[in-house]
């Protein structure tokens, strides 16, 4: 049967996911800075205020800590809040609530109180927004037991992860790479909720495993096409869920390709890439034909100038060059 495909961008897919959640469950509401009248600082929630009204699409004051904490309280009180924080850098003002409350209540209370809260925020560089709007701190959040961390890189996930996150009894953070908002693509008419506990193999090859997530995933896919023209066939894995990590996915791939390159927009030291690398070393050391390698963002606060920002971020050219070197030895 012919699947009906619709053209849209990543932002539209997120908007559809939100709309569906708000329609399906009246306990769901969205709150955050400028989510209503402004339509969302990245226009993700555009149109929702008209459809669902100011009770459920709540503009908040500039109080990341208060409205994130209010999301926790509302979740404890029987609602299903979605908190939008404009960008990950601003989420640091709410870190107390996320880390000390959302992530701990279930455990501190010995299982009495779970917090079914979803927090969405933009992440990452590539838009020349400099050192206070461009960082990729999702790897930090993935350090924290008690929360789950998702990063949709595809339209399907942008559309489908939200509902699955809302069904989860525990706090889920969804990171939306800001450069992906205008990304065009196609989504099937019957697209729906997706699993949030599995990585996904997006391209198959036998020579090398590229492991990534978020905006770098697309750089890996581009690099994989270039490498294929040279006869190098790569597996490309989208981690999708950064906590808990789906070890099986990349271990199975490494067992086949015997080489792994991890591409992560976080800084290298103490990064998610470091974690994935360590897990491969711990669990698949004897499968490896070459050391695991990583491409991460240069360890500087993000510079403004375009050429400098490009130099700081992982790029297709460096992925291709590193892959070649790993294969050729």
């Amino acid at each position, binding site marked *: 049967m012919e699947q009906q495909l619709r053209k849209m961008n990543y932002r539209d897919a997120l908007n559809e996911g939100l709309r569906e959640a708000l329609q399906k469950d009246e306990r769901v*509401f969205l709150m955050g800075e400028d989510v209503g009248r402004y339509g969302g600082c990245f226009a993700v929630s555009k149109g929702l205020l008209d459809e669902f009204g100011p*009770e459920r699409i709540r503009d*908040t*004051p500039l*109080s990341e*800590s*208060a*409205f*994130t*904490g*209010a*999301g*926790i*309280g*509302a*979740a*404890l*009180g*029987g*609602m299903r*809040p979605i908190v939008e924080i404009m960008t990950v850098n601003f989420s640091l003002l709410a870190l*107390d*609530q996320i880390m*000390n*409350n959302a992530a701990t*209540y*279930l*455990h*501190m*209370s*010995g*299982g*009495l*109180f*779970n917090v079914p809260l979803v927090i969405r925020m933009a992440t990452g560089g590539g838009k020349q927004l400099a050192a206070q709007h461009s960082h990729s701190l999702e790897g930090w959040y993935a350090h924290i*037991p*008690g929360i*789950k961390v998702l990063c949709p890189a595809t339209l399907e996930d942008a559309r489908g992860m939200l509902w699955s996150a809302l069904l989860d*009894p*525990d706090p889920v953070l969804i990171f939306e790479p800001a450069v992906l908002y205008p990304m065009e693509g196609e989504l099937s008419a019957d697209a729906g909720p997706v699993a949030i*506990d599995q990585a996904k193999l997006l391209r198959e090859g036998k020579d090398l495993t590229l492991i990534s997530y978020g905006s770098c995933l697309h750089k890996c896919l581009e690099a994989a096409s270039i490498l294929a023209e040279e006869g190098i066939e790569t597996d490309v894995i989208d981690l999708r869920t950064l906590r*808990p990590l789906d070890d099986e996915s990349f271990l199975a791939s490494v067992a086949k390709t015997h080489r792994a390159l991890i591409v992560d927009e976080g800084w290298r030291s103490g990064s998610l890439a470091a974690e994935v690398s360590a897990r491969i070393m711990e669990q698949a050391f004897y499968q490896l034909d070459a050391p695991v390698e990583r491409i991460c963002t240069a360890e500087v606060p993000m510079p403004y100038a375009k050429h400098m920002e490009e130099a700081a971020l992982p790029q297709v050219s460096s992925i291709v060059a590193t892959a070649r070197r790993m294969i050729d030895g």
Partner: protein
Amino acid sequence: MTTMTSKPGQALVNREQSLHFLRQMLRIRRFEEKSAELYSAMKIRGFLHLYIGEEAVAVGVTEALGSDDAVVATYREHGHAMSRGMSMAAIMAEMYGKIDGCCRGRGGSMHLFDVEHRLYGGNAIVAGGLPVAVGLALADQMQNKKSVTCCCFGEGAMAEGEFHEAMNLAALWQLPVLFVCENNFYAMGTALQLSESVVDLTSKAAAYAVPTATVDGMDVIAVAEAAEKASDTVRETGGPFFLECRTYRFRPHSMFDPGLYRSRQEVEGWKQRCPIISLIRRLKDKGWIDDPGLERLEGEIATEIDSAVDFAEQSEWESVEDLTRFVYSDAGAN
């Protein structure tokens, strides 16, 4: 110092209620004295913050709450937990770190939680509970429930940004939160006038157009009356209220406090105003209690404490195999 905005307690409550206040305050006092002893005996570890001296606040405020109302408290919350109706046994076992503690020993003294009494924790981050209380009230408002969320915190919390953010949001959205500031004049060793440019605390809430009152927190009847009025206002308006209770902790901040920052005379002066002693005096004046009656009460409380300690002693330790439970609701997710 500004003057009290509510009058001293009229003692117009009846005998039964006054005796109930006395019992509740004495239960907290004796329970905590025992806890301090057990701390020295190394049965209780970690941080232990005693409420001794401040009992009238939790007891008086709780009187204004119903079973559907929620409470968010701080690490100094034994008194709130007990006033709300949690058993001494569950609290003691929690402080022992035993499996029969209210939180299976995962929380300890600073993190008492209870579903039945809607106690959403002792929170050990100063001001960290305020935004959560605002959210609980938001959930109630959105679901058309008529409950009040009572949020207790020390005056030290009012220097934190979270206090101001929470106050603004509660006022902006007119959420039913009863904010109770337990002003004991010190945040650890820092006196109020060394941490606040404006020491009139009600003016900070008033700046957000939140109605306020100040009450003598050493007078349980005055607290109960003020809290009743405050919670009535919250129920009538659906919006927040800020109640300052002026009180004093007789003990160190925690068990690790050398107490260098305040004079012995000052502490002694406040002890003269002990909420329990002054209530007993008033009850005796009325002829509502006598020494034998008091002795009986003490005896009953001692028995309750003994059995709580026994319970904690007998309770098991949780199996270490369960270490990573309760990180996620689905045990396999970690």
